[in-house]
């Protein structure tokens, strides 16, 4: 950066200026910088990525279906974003700590979330399901952008421990407007903390196109904070994996934070409550369907004779098992007893809440036998 009166600021997001390894029609192309990071990927590894993405797509569809059937209160579909979620999460080490947002179903899946984990929170049985320390993954964040600071703080902790984990902050294009996300970049840069920012730019924040948030490529913001950034085809699982491996390595080896903008598309509604026909055209959605992350990897696998009916059937069987588990979890869910609304507010005894518990228990006992209030 030098002083200038006429900085060359782009005023539109050029969607084709992306790091890419797999074209929309499934050709593997070369990228001098990304190639080395996926040299080890063999057939099985590629099939594994496909399997994850296919499973994610299925579980996502199942979530939508269960919501429609009244089993869930809400669902935030991930359809279209399988490559960035699976690619980046697969690049992480088990002991890296990930801070996803509500839409990163694929991240949770890769980290080991079980069928019930996808059900019980959206069903409204509990705010979070898995223990964050078991999956090294935080409860998906709903307050837009808040988790980016948590990731930086976690990374500051890693620095203090003198170990080499990396923290990962996931968020959307809309989130980049939040103060918190910008403050996270400031802190990460100032402390050179081992954190990777993964922005899934899916073109929309509910009904607002990304141009409301940014009149320029989002990846262009990070360098101004002293953070190297990369704009990657977010529907290309190979590029996402490679970029993330590079980013993690950068962070892990003490070179500081990295910012990845994955350019992708939210194929579905914002959530099951949303009606995207009110604000975007079918043509736009169609155009993105042609860049689908699954079909392009399938094409690559087919070109390598690595995709046959047996594999397809096997993937399908996996997905059937998983979604059956989700349905099962929904149908067998038991809502916790009333008194438990008061649990876990504090880690230590609390006279105020203890008194409320006594009162509420007394109140509830009046309904005993009625089976209604508990």
């Amino acid at each position, binding site marked *: 950066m030098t002083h200038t009166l006429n900085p060359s600021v782009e005023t539109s997001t050029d969607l084709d200026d992306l790091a890419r390894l797999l074209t929309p029609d499934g050709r593997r192309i070369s990228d001098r910088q990304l190639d080395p990071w996926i040299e080890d990927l063999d057939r099985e590894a590629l099939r594994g990525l496909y399997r994850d993405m296919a499973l994610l797509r299925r579980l996502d569809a199942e979530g939508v279906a269960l919501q429609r059937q009244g089993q869930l*209160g*809400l669902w935030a579909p991930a359809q279209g974003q399988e490559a960035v979620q699976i690619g980046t999460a697969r690049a992480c080490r088990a002991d890296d700590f990930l801070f996803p947002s*509500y839409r990163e179903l694929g991240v949770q899946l890769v980290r080991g979330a079980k069928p019930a984990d996808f059900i019980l*929170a*959206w*069903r*409204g*049985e*509990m*705010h979070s399901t898995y223990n964050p320390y078991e999956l090294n993954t935080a409860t998906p964040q*709903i*307050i*837009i952008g808040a988790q980016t600071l948590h990731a930086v703080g976690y990374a500051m902790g890693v620095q203090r421990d003198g170990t080499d984990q990396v923290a990962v902050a996931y968020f959307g294009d*809309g*989130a980049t*407007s*939040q*103060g*918190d996300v910008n403050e996270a970049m400031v802190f990460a840069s100032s402390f050179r903390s081992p954190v990777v920012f993964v922005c899934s730019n899916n073109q929309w*924040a*509910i*009904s*607002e196109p990304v141009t*409301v*948030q940014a009149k320029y490529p989002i990846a262009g913001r990070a360098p101004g904070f002293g953070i190297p950034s990369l704009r990657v085809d977010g529907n290309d699982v190979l590029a996402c994996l490679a970029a993330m491996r590079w980013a993690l390595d950068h962070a892990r080896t003490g070179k500081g934070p990295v910012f990845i903008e994955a350019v992708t598309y939210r194929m579905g509604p914002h959530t099951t*409550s*949303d009606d995207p026909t*009110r*604000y975007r055209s079918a043509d736009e959605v169609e155009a993105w369907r042609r860049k689908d992350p699954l079909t392009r990897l399938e094409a690559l696998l087919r070109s390598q004779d690595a995709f046959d009916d047996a594999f397809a059937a096997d993937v399908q069987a996996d997905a059937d098992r998983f979604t059956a588990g989700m349905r099962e979890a929904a149908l067998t869910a038991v*809502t*916790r007893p*009333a008194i*438990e*609304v*008061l649990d876990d*507010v504090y880690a230590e005894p609390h006279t*105020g*809440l203890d*008194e*409320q518990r*006594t*009162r*509420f228990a*007394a*109140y509830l*006992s*009046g*309904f005993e036998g009625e089976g209604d*209030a508990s």
Partner: protein
Amino acid sequence: MTQLTMGKALGAGLRRAMADDDRVIVMGEDVGKLGGVFRITDGLQTEFGAMRVIDTPLAESGIMGTAVGLAFRGYRPVVEIQFDGFVYPAFDQIVCQVAKLHYRTRGNVTMPITIRIPWAGGVGAAEHHSESPEAYFVHTSGLRVVAVSNPQDAYVMLRQAIACDDPVVFFEPKRLYHSKGEVDLDGDIADAAPMGVARVVREGSDVTLLTYGAQVSTALDAALAAEDDGISIEVVDLRSISPVDYTTVTASVRKTGRVVVTHEAAREAGVGAELIASITEKCFHYLESAPVRVTGHDIPYPPAKLEKHHLPDLDRILDAVDRVLDRPNSLSGVQL
């Protein structure tokens, strides 16, 4: 009179306010093409254009701070906070700027900003989508805080709030957006009851039941149920929770001598605490028993499936009514 849902009544109020005064600007996330996630602003952008109905970047402090700047320039911004739980990033701008600028500038700068907040629980929503943050604003000097409970008030009070030269935090119970009622679309807001005035929505003689927002209908249900037991409950819809209309409130309490306050928000230092403290001070010698609060527990808002155990309902209100009447109730015999 026209039959409207509260959501439509709010939209009509906004439309009317925008038509009456071209300094009125609507701004927030998704308020334009989408018409807001609750469709309250539906059609406004088409009608008034994108310069007056602004889809903002996703940043609540930014929304509030630019609204302050617009007010500096003489506009009357109506800000939509998408859900109750998303108002906190704007808290600094609200508390340090919106609430203080008139005082800071000794009246030279007014802040006629209306902060609309889809509000409270009972809609089976995810975390952060069912909060009742009103006490934070009630405690903040320089703000006015109102909560509506029916379409007619929604239509009139929203216009009054927008016309008010002070900042108004305007709470809209999400769970009532689809509830219908008669609305007089033609009335003059100057002829209607001012937004600062409470309304006795049901007269009674044994107990005063004070509430606001969606709890008003729960309170009316409780009053109806109590009638069967021969208990006459007076229900007061506060409408304005800062300032509170103590003329109406104390008149009722002096008549009944017994008070129950109910709200969804947590109990500790909530609006109920203020009501009881003020009532005790103003009506001590009229009180025949200790006023009782029926509120949300002092917990973060629970998961949707458990919210019914958090929200005051008819049974909990009646239990409290028994308490203020010294009748057997759930706490009879409980040592605290």
